[in-house]
């Protein structure tokens, strides 16, 4: 007999490979596409906001600034949107007794984490070849900010996976949330350029906290305003808790075919 841990590990591994094949397998340049997609965004953002970036953040290379926000943001977006479909779309697999509704979410999150890490490193190397100093000022803190964002993404992902598993029509709302999220999460501007009286509203967004904290520790000269570790830690733990609690409550319903 296999132990529960062994079963869990092999199921997540199985889903991981499956996701890898289905996400990229159908395109000829599949894996390359994961790297090319951010490039378009970066070019557009640099073209539009480049001047503003150089003026408001002296001493910080604007392309590097974008990368430190864009990759984690994409990563968050993909984890939670793909998790929203994960529970529903794999219902047929629940007939295999070891498969449980959340397994696919874990696997997708791990895959996105891997894509994030590889993409991030590749782009850093790319910038370094242009002679830009890419090493973070305090790597450990940067790492912590991203890991907390990862946990937050999984928490939100489980919530949306469970909710969309029960009410599939809610999946239609996802694009409506993602679009504004891109603009209010500080992907291409620091919070410090936002007028002070509006900042408190932006600071309700945990993603913004993660990006600000990561950048503050990435760039010694980054002027950070109001982002808090406590808020980020609490948001990720609370979202994970709500997600798992929701799953616990609805698990029978999710298993029904």
């Amino acid at each position, binding site marked *: 007999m296999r132990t529960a841990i062994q079963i869990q590990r*092999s199921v997540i591994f*199985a889903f991981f490979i499956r996701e890898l094949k289905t996400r990229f397998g159908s395109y000829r340049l599949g894996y390359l596409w994961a790297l090319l997609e951010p490039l378009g965004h970066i070019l557009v953002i640099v073209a539009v906001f480049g001047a503003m970036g150089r003026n408001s953040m002296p001493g910080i290379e604007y392309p590097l600034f974008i990368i430190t926000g864009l990759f984690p943001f994409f990563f968050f977006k993909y984890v939670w949107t793909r998790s929203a479909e994960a529970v529903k779309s794999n219902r*047929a697999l629940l*007939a295999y007794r070891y498969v449980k509704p959340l397994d696919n979410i874990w696997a997708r999150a791990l895959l996105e984490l891997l894509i994030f890490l590889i993409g991030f490193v590749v782009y850093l190397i790319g910038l370094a070849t242009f002679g830009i100093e890419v090493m973070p000022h305090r790597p450990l803190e940067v790492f912590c900010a991203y890991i907390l964002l990862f946990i937050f993404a999984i928490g939100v992902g489980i919530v949306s996976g469970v909710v969309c598993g029960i009410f599939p029509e809610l999946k239609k709302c996802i694009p409506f949330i993602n679009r504004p999220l891109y603009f209010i999460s500080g992907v291409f501007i620091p919070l410090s350029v936002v007028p002070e009286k509006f900042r408190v509203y932006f600071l309700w967004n945990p993603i913004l906290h993660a990006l600000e904290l990561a950048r503050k520790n990435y760039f010694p000269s980054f002027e950070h305003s109001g982002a808090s570790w406590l808020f980020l830690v609490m948001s990720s733990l609370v979202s994970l808790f709500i997600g798992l609690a929701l799953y616990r409550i609805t698990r029978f319903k999710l298993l029904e*075919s």
Partner: protein
Amino acid sequence: MIELKNVTKWYQTKKGRHYVFRDVSMIFPEGKSIGILGPNGAGKSTLIRMIGGSEYPNSGRVITKKNISWPVGLSGGFQGSMSGRDNIKFICRIYGLSRDETLDKIQFVREFAEIGNYFDMPVSTYSSGMRSKISFGLSMSFDFDYYLVDECTSVGDQTFRHKSNKLFDQKREKANIIMVAHNPQVLIRNTDIGAVIIDGKITLLDDIKDAAKYYSKVVKN
């Protein structure tokens, strides 16, 4: 041995809870194949899924140490964009098989299904017959103590049907099956004892022939 202990199962409907089973306790004896009879919606499939561990009772437990299959011939879980081979690998990974074991299963299914080059093409290009061949072959390539069969319709052409029946009979020498079918003759051919589900109660009869008679009598009344 498979034991149901105080099993209660209900589904939430708009009109409140619909009870499928209420406090059912019973023991399916060792070494017997079981045929399940019951009218539509009586809970035959629910029972199969609970035994297979893909659904749980709302209260009570299903207790067994036996190795129980997924519903034989299940192909709904196949990922259309992946090849038959990759889909088989996926199931093998779920079951934690080693590399060599996985290769054995692939070899087995490949030879059994005889779908040629389609084996390495996306499942979405398969005909339903090809899908069934792969999924039936895959179920048979695993050694379970119990095989769950839900309304198994014979698939494919005559030679294939003959081949799959032979394989299934071979399996039954070492393993048992739990089968749901509408046709009592299919159950009588394949199983030993009968479980009749009526109004949320399960009656176990030691002979499937008696069970079929009992069922037809109850349904007529």
